[in-house]
C-alpha cells in the first residue's frame, strides 16, 4: 500500500496465514455468503466497505467539483459537526502505511510514533489525494509529537489548531474547549464565506448521531458468543469521510445482514474448535492500512470482540445533544469527553474499560501501543492494574510500529496469551 489511492488497497491479500498446521479455523464463525447463500465471498455490505477509499475519493472529488471545501482532520477530538455545518467534507488524514515513513524521517525524528510519521510522509510524498485536495486541515493540541508535526504541516498547508485543555476534570476546561470550538466556527465561516447557523449545526449533530448510532449497533453485535463477524471484519465498517449517505445505508444493511442472529445449527457449541478466546483491544488506533496487529491476534485462535480505541468504540460511545438551545456547547461537551491518554487524569478511560469489559465479556485484554506514543505507553500502567487486579483478566501489552519485522514475535506472545486464557477457563 504505497499510496492511499483508489484500488491500492483492494488487491490486499491475507498476509498472515495460520501459524500452526492444526490451527482452529480462523474464518468468521458464521461464513454466510459461502455455502447455500447466493454467491461466495464476503457479504455485500462488507464488500462495499472494502472499497471504502475508492468511494471516499469519488465522493470528495464530486464534492470539490460542487465547490464544497475538503477539510482534513487528524484526531477524533475534531468536532466534525462544525465542519459539516460549514458545508465542508471532513476527511481523516491519519496515515497507516509503512511505505511513507522513510520520506517523513527526512524531517521528523525516527523515534516518533508511526501514525504521525506515516501521516506526514504522505504529505512529503504528495501521495494522499485527500491531503492534496484539502482546503484546510483542522487539528488539536493533543500529544507533543502531533502538535509539533502540525507546525511542519502548517508550513505548506492551511492549518487551524484548536487548543485542547488536558486536565479533564478541571472545572474551567470544558468552558475553554467550548471557546475553542466557537473560534473554529468563526474561522470556517471566514475562510469559506458561509454562515454556520444553529439549524445547520443541529442537522449535522443529527447526521453524526445517526452515523455513530449505526456503528455502535454494529460493534454491539460482537457481544454475541460467538460473534457473527470477526474483529477484522468489523473494523472494515468505517469511512474516512463522515456523513456520506450511501455509507449510512450500507451500515444499515450490514446490521440487517449480521443482526439476523445465528440459527441453532450455525452456532458452534462450546466444545468445538470454533470456540475462540474473546479479546478486548485497547490503546492506540488501528488506522486504515495499519491493521496488522489485529490480524495477527485473530490468526491465533482469538476474536477481538471490542476495540476501545479511536478506530473502535471510543469516539462513538457518546452522542451530542441535538435539541439544546445553543448547539456549540453540546458539540464541545460530546467531544471533550473522549478519554484519550493525553488527558490527565484520564479516569474516563478506566470507567469505559470497566463498562465495556462487562458488556463484551472478554477473556483477556491486549493493549496496543505505537512505538514512542508516550501517553499511551505510560498510561498502560493503570490499564494493566485495572485489568489484572480489578477485572481479573490476563493482560498483554504490545509495543510496535508499522513494520512487520516483529510479527512472528508478536504471534508467539499472543499465542501464549491465548493458551493462558484457555488454561484459566479450564475447570
Amino acid at each position, binding site marked *: 500500500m504505497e499510496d492511499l489511492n483508489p484500488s491500492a488497497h483492494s488487491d490486499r491479500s491475507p498476509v498472515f496465514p495460520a501459524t500452526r498446521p492444526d490451527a482452529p479455523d480462523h474464518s468468521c464463525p458464521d461464513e454466510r455468503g459461502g455455502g447455500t447463500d447466493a454467491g461466495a465471498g464476503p457479504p455485500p455490505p462488507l464488500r462495499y466497505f472494502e472499497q471504502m477509499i475508492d468511494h471516499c475519493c469519488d465522493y470528495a472529488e464530486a464534492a470539490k467539483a460542487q465547490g464544497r471545501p475538503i477539510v482534513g482532520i487528524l484526531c477524533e477530538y475534531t468536532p466534525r459537526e462544525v465542519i459539516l455545518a460549514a458545508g465542508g467534507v471532513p476527511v481523516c488524514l491519519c496515515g497507516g502505511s509503512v511505505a511513507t515513513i522513510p520520506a517523513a524521517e527526512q524531517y521528523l525524528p525516527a523515534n516518533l510514533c508511526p501514525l504521525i510519521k506515516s501521516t506526514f510522509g504522505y504529505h512529503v510524498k504528495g501521495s494522499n489525494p485527500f491531503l492534496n485536495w484539502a482546503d484546510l486541515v483542522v487539528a488539536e493540541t493533543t500529544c507533543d509529537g502531533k502538535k509539533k508535526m502540525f507546525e511542519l504541516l502548517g508550513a505548506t498547508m492551511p492549518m487551524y489548531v484548536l487548543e485542547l485543555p488536558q486536565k479533564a476534570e478541571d472545572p474551567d476546561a470544558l468552558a475553554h474547549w467550548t471557546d475553542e470550538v466557537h473560534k473554529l466556527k468563526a474561522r470556517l465561516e471566514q475562510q469559506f464565506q458561509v454562515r454556520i447557523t444553529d439549524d445547520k449545526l443541529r442537522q449535522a449533530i443529527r447526521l453524526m448521531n445517526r452515523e455513530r448510532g449505526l456503528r455502535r449497533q454494529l460493534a454491539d453485535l460482537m457481544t454475541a458468543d460467538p460473534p457473527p463477524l470477526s474483529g477484522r471484519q468489523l473494523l472494515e465498517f468505517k469511512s474516512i469521510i463522515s456523513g456520506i449517505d450511501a455509507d449510512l445505508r450500507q451500515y444499515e444493511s450490514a446490521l440487517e445482514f449480521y443482526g439476523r442472529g445465528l440459527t441453532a445449527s450455525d452456532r458452534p457449541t462450546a466444545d*468445538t474448535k470454533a470456540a475462540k478466546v474473546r479479546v478486548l483491544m485497547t490503546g492506540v488506533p488501528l488506522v486504515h492500512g495499519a491493521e496488522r496487529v489485529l490480524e495477527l491476534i485473530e490468526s491465533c485462535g482469538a476474536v477481538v470482540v471490542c476495540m476501545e480505541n479511536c478506530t473502535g468504540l471510543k469516539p462513538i460511545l457518546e452522542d451530542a445533544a441535538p435539541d439544546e438551545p445553543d448547539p456549540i456547547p453540546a458539540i464541545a461537551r460530546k467531544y471533550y469527553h473522549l478519554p484519550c491518554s493525553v488527558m490527565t487524569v484520564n479516569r474516563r478511560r478506566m470507567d469505559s474499560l470497566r463498562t465495556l469489559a462487562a458488556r463484551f465479556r472478554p477473556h483477556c485484554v491486549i493493549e496496543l501501543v505505537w512505538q514512542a506514543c508516550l501517553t499511551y505507553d505510560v498510561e498502560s500502567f493503570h490499564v494493566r492494574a485495572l485489568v489484572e487486579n480489578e477485572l481479573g483478566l490476563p493482560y498483554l501489552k504490545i*509495543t510496535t510500529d508499522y513494520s512487520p*519485522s516483529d510479527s*512472528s*514475535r*508478536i504471534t508467539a506472545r499472543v499465542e501464549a496469551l491465548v*493458551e493462558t486464557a484457555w488454561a*484459566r477457563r479450564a475447570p
Partner: protein
Amino acid sequence: MICAGIDAGSRSIKVLLFDTERSQILSSGIMDQGLAQQRLAAQLFERTLREAQVPRAQVAAVVATGYGRSAVRFADTTITEITCHARGVHHLVPDARTIIEIGGQDSKVICLEDGGRVRDFAMNDRCAAGSGRFLEVVASRLDVDLPTLGDLSRDSLNPAAISSMCVVFAETEIIGLLTEGTPAPDIAAGVQQAIAMRVVALAGRAVAPPVCFTGGVALQSGMVRALSEVLSCPVRVAPLPQYTGALGAAILAGSRPRFGTPP
C-alpha cells in the same frame, strides 16, 4: 503413554521422550539449528527414538515448541515456549513461582500461579540484547568460547558498565572498552550484569520467589550470580536447563484436554 516434545529453538533443537505413566524421561537429544529445520528435527527425533529403543508407532503424541515450531511438520500440534517452559519447570521444580528463561534469541520472565499455571509473562521484543546471541557476540569479540566466557567473569574485580540496549551497539561499546585496556574478565562480568538487568527490567514488577533460571544461557557460570545480585534473591538453575521447553511439550502432549487448544 510415550510422548515427545520438540523444542525448535533459534540456536539448537532439543528432543525429549517422556513416559507419562511413569513420569520419566526416556531419552533426550540436542543439535545445532540449521537451514533445513524440518529435516534436522526429524533426524534428531529418529536418533532420540533409537537411543530409547522406542518404535515411532509407540509415540502417542508429538508437540513442537520454540521459535521454529511451525516448521516441525510431523508434530501433532504446537504450543508456545511460554506454556511449555512453565510446564517443564513446574515438573522439575514444583515450587518455582518465577521462571527466567534465556535462550538463543530471546529472554522471558514467566510468573506462575499455584499449580504451575501461567499467570503472566513478559518477553523481549525486537532486540536481541539480554539473550544468548549477545553472549556469542561478546565471546567472539574476546576470542574465547562460551564456557570460557562464563568462567572469565569470576576473576572480575570491577565489572565494566555496558549500557547499550542493542547487540550491535554493545559490540561497539566493547571494542571501545578493549581499546581502553579494560580486562576481559571485567567485560565478561559487565555483559552478564547488563543481561541480568535487562531481563529483570522485563519483569517490570516484583519477582516472586522461588526463582528458577532455565534455557541454554543458564549453563553460563556467572549468569546465576549476576541474576541473583540484580534481583537480590537466590536464583536456582533448573535441572536440564536446555530441555525444560521440550520436557514441557512432551508432558503437555500427554495431557487431555491439551493446553493451548480449546477444550
